[in-house]
């Protein structure tokens, strides 16, 4: 899901994000962002239905400050969600009746996840009980038996052929139809990167967006070629098969 290298490089959030020095959690012991979130809620002894989003969001961010990059994407997604909620909670409420709690979806997911955790607890007790019973340790080797005569006919084979064909994912072309090329979107992403004056060049993969599909790759590629043709950027490849590097056109930078 998170193929490293394709998504824009994400630096892990640093301790600067509202870290509480007295607050230490061992992230390895959590199975994911929801697990961590549940732990924080339990620590704070708050009601799941009425989460103090601002406080919890800050704690979540400080907790993931120590994250390794390979896990980062899953936790960062949740961090982003919490920050968005934090902002939404600060908005003035129209009236109590009309107000739709923006936390609703998060609460639903937390409850669903808690249910999974309860089942996990039940599984663990079952497995623990089962592990107290040992099967026979020595299993005699299976006897050497003459081969069983085999029956096979053409109809069986052709039925299998049909099953295989039925199971083949739709050809690529068909799947492209509902998601046409989005060269404009890709152009906007590239222009945003070019607008960042701090960097003279960047890897073209940064322009792909999160979780790129083949279509995204093609769109980005076409946009790059178009922008290069218009003289807005230079493309170059340091070595065969290496990633393309995008460089702002110096004329544009001066502009």
């Amino acid at each position: 899901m998170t193929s490293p290298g394709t998504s824009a490089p994400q630096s892990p959030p640093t301790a600067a994000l509202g870290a509480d020095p007295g607050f230490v959690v061992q992230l390895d012991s959590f199975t994911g962002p929801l697990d961590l979130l549940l732990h924080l809620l339990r620590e704070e002894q708050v009601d799941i239905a009425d989460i103090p989003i601002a406080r919890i969001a800050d704690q979540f961010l400080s907790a993931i400050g120590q994250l390794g990059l390979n896990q980062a994407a899953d936790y960062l997604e949740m961090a982003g969600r919490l920050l968005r909620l934090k902002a939404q909670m600060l908005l003035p409420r129209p009236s109590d009746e009309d107000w739709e709690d923006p936390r609703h979806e998060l609460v639903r997911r937390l409850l669903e996840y808690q249910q999974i955790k309860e089942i996990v607890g039940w599984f663990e007790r079952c497995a623990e009980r089962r592990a107290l019973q040992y099967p026979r340790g020595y299993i005699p080797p299976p006897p050497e038996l003459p081969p069983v005569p085999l029956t096979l006919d053409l109809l069986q084979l052709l039925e299998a052929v049909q099953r295989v064909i039925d199971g083949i994912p739709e050809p690529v072309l068909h799947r492209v139809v509902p998601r046409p090329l989005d060269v404009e979107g890709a152009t906007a992403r590239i222009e945003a990167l070019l607008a960042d004056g701090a960097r003279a060049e960047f890897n073209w993969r940064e322009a792909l967006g999160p979780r790129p599909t083949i279509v995204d790759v093609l769109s980005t590629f076409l946009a790059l070629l178009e922008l290069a043709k218009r003289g807005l950027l230079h493309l170059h490849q340091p070595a065969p098969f290496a990633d393309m590097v995008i460089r702002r056109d110096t004329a544009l930078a001066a502009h």
Partner: protein
Amino acid sequence: MTPLSQLIEAALFSANRPLTVEELQTLDAEATLADVRTALDQLREHYDFDQHAVELVELAGGWQILTRPAFAQAIEQAQFAQRTPRLTGAALETLAIISYRQPVGRAEIEEIRGVAAGGVLRALQERGLIEVVGRSEQLGRPLLYGTTPLFLELLGLKDLAELPRAEELTIALQPPRPAEPEAEAGADAAASVPSES
């Protein structure tokens, strides 16, 4: 011990997994399924009555001879046999989701856990605890997963119907699909599910 109980005992001693009543029936061409069940009962009672250290356990749709829990500590201390390695938290959560929602695709699992699931799914498949049971009709025809008999064996369950029902859990969230106890129907059920939604 009747001749059939003896045959069954010998077969169960020679197998490294639970054997079904149907498999045990092949031991004796004359025996009916009812005969096999009677002989299994006799064997179980015999082990209990004579206070053997082993017992006959119904497991994953079949029968297996296992040591009684009371002797676990002695076996472990003497290190004559090894305990099955424990599953990680991630693996257990994934199994929990699959066991209740099978047939289920990777995207749904990832949505519930909030974590990428590719590695865990592969590990569970390699351990033989889950298997591909079909393909979804949805875009890209993603693979659908279900649990295997080995999963039931690991937890010591007779069948999926032994899983706690949603109403029995403290968090009373109804899963979108109720747990289907028919493990065998996996592949066929997988193909028919999308038409329901």
